[in-house]
């Protein structure tokens, strides 16, 4: 045991971090007090709006619609990125071929594809899922590819002199050695997918958090827009801090720096 035992987990311990959210709310209240509530509503109006959506049973519907699309696009992107990223990491020729394409597609904001996917697939979930896929797959591929390519030739040789055959090399060396890159890729991919999801829903959906924000804007309901924005932030924060950051930190201990 190296570190001192604390009674509280790190994230519960007192620190400046605890002030940031109250400061944000305070700033919001101060600014909102200078505007009419229908232009910039204060936090409690947004909370009331959230309560109204909840009571009408419409909030869960939006959340599930968004989460379902996010998951579908993200899982598909993860599978594709693992396949392409691993091959590109292992074979230099393929890596040289894939890298410029990756760079090109990463330079294009994913939501720019939304009008095209709507034309091709029609209005509906699939068009949005394809945009999410595009948003996540390229940064994930790059991250996995670099992770696999960075596996030291020395570790492979050591494993061979210790008697590992080809299958054992893949399973006992390549896989564990690329886990840090994989968890980093999941983290990046999920957040990229989430951003693209909201943007795509604003353009071409009839449900979901992005649609909620866009509709709020069209009918002039600022509270609904802010409610949507708050939900987008909270969901991203939950996924990041409860799942991906922990997964990532698990591998920090031995990650090559």
């Amino acid at each position, binding site marked *: 045991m190296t570190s001192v035992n604390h009674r509280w987990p790190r994230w519960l311990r007192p620190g400046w971090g605890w002030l940031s959210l109250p400061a944000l709310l305070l700033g919001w209240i101060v600014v909102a007090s200078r505007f009419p509530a229908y232009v910039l509503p204060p936090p409690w109006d947004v909370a009331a709006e959230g309560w109204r959506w909840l009571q009408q049973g419409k909030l869960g519907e939006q959340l599930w619609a968004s989460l379902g699309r996010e998951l579908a696009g993200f899982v598909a992107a993860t599978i594709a990125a693992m396949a392409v990223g691993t091959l590109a990491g292992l074979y230099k020729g393929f890596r040289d071929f894939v890298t410029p394409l990756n760079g090109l597609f990463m330079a294009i904001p994913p939501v720019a594809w939304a009008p095209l996917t709507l034309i091709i697939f029609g209005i509906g979930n699939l068009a949005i899922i394809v945009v999410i896929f595009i948003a996540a797959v390229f940064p994930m591929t790059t991250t996995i590819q670099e992770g696999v390519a960075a596996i030291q030739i*020395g*570790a492979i040789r*050591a*494993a061979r*002199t210790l008697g*590992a*055959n080809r299958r054992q090399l893949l399973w006992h060396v390549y896989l564990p050695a690329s886990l840090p890159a994989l968890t980093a890729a999941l983290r990046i991919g999920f957040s990229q997918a989430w951003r693209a999801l909201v943007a795509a829903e604003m353009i071409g959906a009839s449900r979901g958090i992005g649609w909620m924000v866009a509709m709020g804007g069209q009918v002039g309901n600022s509270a609904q827009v802010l409610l949507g924005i708050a939900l987008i932030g909270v969901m991203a924060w939950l996924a990041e801090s409860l799942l991906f950051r922990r997964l990532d930190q698990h591998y920090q201990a*031995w990650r090559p720096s």
Partner: protein
Amino acid sequence: MLPAQPKAPMPTLAAAQPSQFAVENVDFAYPGHAVFRGLSLRAQPGEFLVLLGPSGCGKTTLLNLLAGFMAPASGRVLLDDSPVRPEHPALGYVFQSPQLFPWLSALENVRFGLRMAGRGSEAEQRALAIEHLALVGLADAADKLPHQLSGGMQQRVALARTLALQPGVLLMDEPFAALDAITRIKLNEETLRIWSQLRQTVVFITHDIDEALFLADRILVLAPAPGGIAAEFDIALPRPRAAATRQLAQFAHYRQQVSACIADLQLQPLAA
């Protein structure tokens, strides 16, 4: 101390049969640049052979050939009369840097080869791994991850990992070159202590004359590329060797001879 408990029979800490290792008339070249021409050498079973190479003689290439990572253009490298390959069960290789698997504890690193070979039950593998960690003086570090260990400790874990497979020949590629002088001298003594216990054949590559003299039964001096063996020295220093060995007049005498030989080589490289 705990009261003695009935113990399962422990796997034994022993060398496999020491191997014979031979390089026969090997040529090797990179495009436009010959590295070895007609290189031959032979390590007798149980011998501690040191290959002493001044810089630029192709030490790394030689080790790659000896372990079968690269194939010679012509000639053969034989381990117990069969062509060498990295996966050969009698071949043990200690790399210049430890090359431990960073996601495995010291114990699991040492167990790796046994696991790959499926040798024994998990409990037996762990017991054997602990025993080899104890052999290099690191039984206490069994549960540590490599990054929690110093460079010298990592290299000792790497040595234990290689020894756990009980290789007949141990190829050591400047294993202590990256360590500080004090650690290095200590690990030289440890290497000899372990070798005197296990007695496998050792082929040890270094560019350090004192290290070579301290360890070797026999030193082969490598000629600069394109070359082979430039000179051979039998080192008849008494064993067991210890710090005092370095103070012997005989040691100084050998050092003078070997140094002079290397100085000559660097002044007049062999004609291409």
